[in-house]
């Protein structure tokens, strides 16, 4: 099923699960309420995003582009703001500030904890995949090495068997 570009909704199943987990056991949720919460969640993302961009858009509009290009003008403060505005990537700190400004301070602590756990997990994943790559490289190297040896020397089967046995030990 092709996704329409306007499909800015979040998956119903996940939203439903989050709602059920938040409410006391046995509480029902009407279909209409579920749909409304899902839409509210999308609006929340948009609302948060608008808070995130508000600050640098303001700086950009005030201080860059609209400045008259004058070689004689030396206004260090204007340059600074334009440079600040050049930071176009939204980062974690921006999100935390936005939550505060939106008056969702209650989210700050759980968000900080979640971010720490997430970062650890990402680091672990990275290390795991690097480890995997290293091991793959070792195996490839060993294979190349044994192939070279086969070509150079006319080895009989016994010796080949021995070499393979050695390689297996190295891998383990």
């Amino acid at each position, binding site marked *: 099923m092709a996704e329409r570009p306007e499909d*800015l909704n*979040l*998956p119903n199943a*996940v*939203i439903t699960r*989050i*709602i059920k*987990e*938040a*409410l006391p056991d046995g*509480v*029902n*949720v*009407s279909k209409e*309420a579920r749909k*409304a*919460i899902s*839409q*509210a*969640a*999308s*609006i*929340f*993302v*948009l*609302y*948060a*995003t*608008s808070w*995130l*961009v508000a600050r640098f*858009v303001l700086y950009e509009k005030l201080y860059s582009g609209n400045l008259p290009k004058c070689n004689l003008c030396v206004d260090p403060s204007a340059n600074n703001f334009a440079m600040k505005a050049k930071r*176009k*990537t*939204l*980062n*974690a700190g*921006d*999100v*935390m500030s936005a*939550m505060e400004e*939106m*008056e*969702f301070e209650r*989210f700050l602590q*759980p*968000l900080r904890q*979640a*971010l720490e*756990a*997430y970062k*650890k*997990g*990402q680091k*672990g*994943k990275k290390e*795991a995949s690097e*480890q*995997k790559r290293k*091991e793959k490289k070792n195996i490839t190297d060993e294979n190349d090495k044994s192939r070279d040896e086969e070509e150079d020397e006319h080895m009989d089967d016994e010796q080949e068997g021995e070499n393979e046995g050695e390689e297996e030990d190295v891998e383990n």
Partner: protein
Amino acid sequence: MSEKTMEEKVEQATNSKNVSLPMSRVRLIMKSSPDVSCINQDALFLTTKATELFVQHLALSSYKNGSGKETNTLSYSDLANAAEETETFQFLTDILPKKILARDYLKSLEEMKKDDDSL
């Protein structure tokens, strides 16, 4: 074989600490907003997590304040009430309007017209 187990373990750990909502979808929504160029991965994670917290908060607050407690059901009107009465949910009033009967609406329209005429 041992590396597979380690990978599985790491995945399990990250999944239990990660988010349920798809970050790709959240990124899509954020990108639909003008002036957004790049979103750092941590920022995307936080926004997604915050959205989950928001869903929990909205559901629970609406239920607690609403009349649904008697019927043991969270209904649309509970949400609409929360949007109107709670300051932090005010940004939702447009998408969670309170429902009124058609005849009440027509009545209030008439009254507004009367006021205009009398001016």
